[in-house]
């Protein structure tokens, strides 16, 4: 179980300025084990920052974070990783000279057999024959990077997995495969918790719980049944964010079958 107690995160309003801006504002929330939670809300609402605070990439200005009863507020990223927290970045890092296979091995913490690699890549709609030996550098498209990032979390299989807008940049065909994968993850969760930051209705539909984050605060939270019907209204309050169907249909040349 993950628990945030009165967590705030402030940054300087401008570089060198003493004035601060609150990105996360006195936020408290609990993510239960065995739950599939979707965090949604307008751009700039603080979703990625919240994920980074949980992973330890950012340090809260105040407040506490507990994971399975342990105060992890001041633990390093690696310590949290070892406790079982995983985070798939919204903007995945690229590595010159590193092969996809190597990144998956590092994620799993061991040399993976080919069969396992095939499985992870297939789950994100990539053909392992083509991709395992590719370098994780700028020769990969945004959508390919995104899917490899998701595969690293599948390989890691953490107790608490946070996926940050996994659908971004992914074409319609692969999106189907991806929703299926998240549905599978949901049914195989076996005590693990899955948090997905998403704007996609079809992913939100998979949720047990939904959190609506705006201006660094939880504006609404609860079971999917109670929140789903309100999403339209919540979104209307914000001209920048409307729920979208995956209509951005860019047909890429990525082979999705092996």
């Amino acid at each position, binding site marked *: 179980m993950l628990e945030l107690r009165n967590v705030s995160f402030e940054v300087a309003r401008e570089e060198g300025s003493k004035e601060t801006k609150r990105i996360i504002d006195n936020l408290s929330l609990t993510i239960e084990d065995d739950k599939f939670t979707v965090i949604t809300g307008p751009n700039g609402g603080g979703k990625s920052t919240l994920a980074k605070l949980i992973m330890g990439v950012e340090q809260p200005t105040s407040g506490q974070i507990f994971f399975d009863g342990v105060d992890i507020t001041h633990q390093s990223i690696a310590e949290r990783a070892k406790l079982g927290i*995983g985070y798939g970045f919204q903007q995945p890092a690229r*590595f010159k000279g*590193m092969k996809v296979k190597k990144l998956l091995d590092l994620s799993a913490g061991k040399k993976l057999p080919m069969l396992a690699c095939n499985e992870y890549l297939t789950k994100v709609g990539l053909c392992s024959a083509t991709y395992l030996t590719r370098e994780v550098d700028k020769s990969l498209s945004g959508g390919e990077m995104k899917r490899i990032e998701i595969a690293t979390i599948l390989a890691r299989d953490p107790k608490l997995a946070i996926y940050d807008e996994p659908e971004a940049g992914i074409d319609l065909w692969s999106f189907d495969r991806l929703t299926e994968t998240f549905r599978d993850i949901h049914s195989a969760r076996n005590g693990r918790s899955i948090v997905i930051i998403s704007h996609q209705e079809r992913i939100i539909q998979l949720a047990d719980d939904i959190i609506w984050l705006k201006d660094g605060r939880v504006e609404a939270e609860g079971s999917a049944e109670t929140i789903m019907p309100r999403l339209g209204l919540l979104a209307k309050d914000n001209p920048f964010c409307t729920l979208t169907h995956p209509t951005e249909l860019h047909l890429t040349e990525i082979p999705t079958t092996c």
Partner: protein
Amino acid sequence: MSVDLSPIDQSLLEEIASIHGMPKGAYNIRKDGQLLERNSSANIEISTKTDNPGIDIHIKPGTKGETVYIPVILTASGLKDVVYNSFYVGENCDVNIIAGCGIHNSCDQDSEHDGIHSFYCGENSRVRYIEKHYGEGEGAGMRILNPVTNVYLEKNSYCEMELTQIRGVSSTVRDTNAEVGEGAKLVLNEKLLTHDEQTAVSNMKVELKGDDSSVQVISRSVAQGNSSQTFNPLVIGQAACRGHVQCDAIIMDKARVTAIPGIEAASEEAVLVHEAAIGKIAGDQIVKLMTLGLSEEEAEAEILEDFLS
């Protein structure tokens, strides 16, 4: 085959040429300025030069799938070894050449090896040249390597050179010159890691002389400590040719890297591109690896290893 290799000799040979004991086929192993062991094969003949110290390597036309090893090791301090090696690769060959120099200097006098290598690649031949430079030893003596590489590519030949120097070499000035003929292609992959007070200079001059000739220079380097590196690749296009130079350096600590990639076109049909980037390890790379459970140091080492792989 009665040569006894000391454990130091063996580990140096393994480091630079990945060989255990004596290799199969044609080879020439030089130690402390002397010939240690040599073997010619049916297609590859190695002979001592008559004018200069060094060897001539003649590879018969049509030789395919053979590998020749010519590693050099230096374990004596205070030695300056200069050697000329010339490769005459006949037409229609497909061969590998494994070179390299390993210095073990545990004394306070300098050790230096200057290898002057010339490659004449015949028409339609393919040559893969791998050269590793490596230094070790606790002594205060400098470990110096100043290689000169001259490459002449005949019509439709292809030469791929992997030039690597990872750790341990105090000072190096590398000069690489190439003339690329019609339809020929040269690929130069350079990998370099310097640390402490080391200095490295790499000068390259590639002349694309024939139509449809091309060159690809990819230089990746890491500069740590107080070390300094200078890259000076120049590609000259004199025909309807293609040239691409890419210098990519990671800089750490108090190191200094200068990259001066140059291109010079003397034909309006020449297409030449150069790119150079110098920067520290990207923070998002370290953070990603830390989210996979690696410590900051482990993440850094992993990133450097892949970058230079």
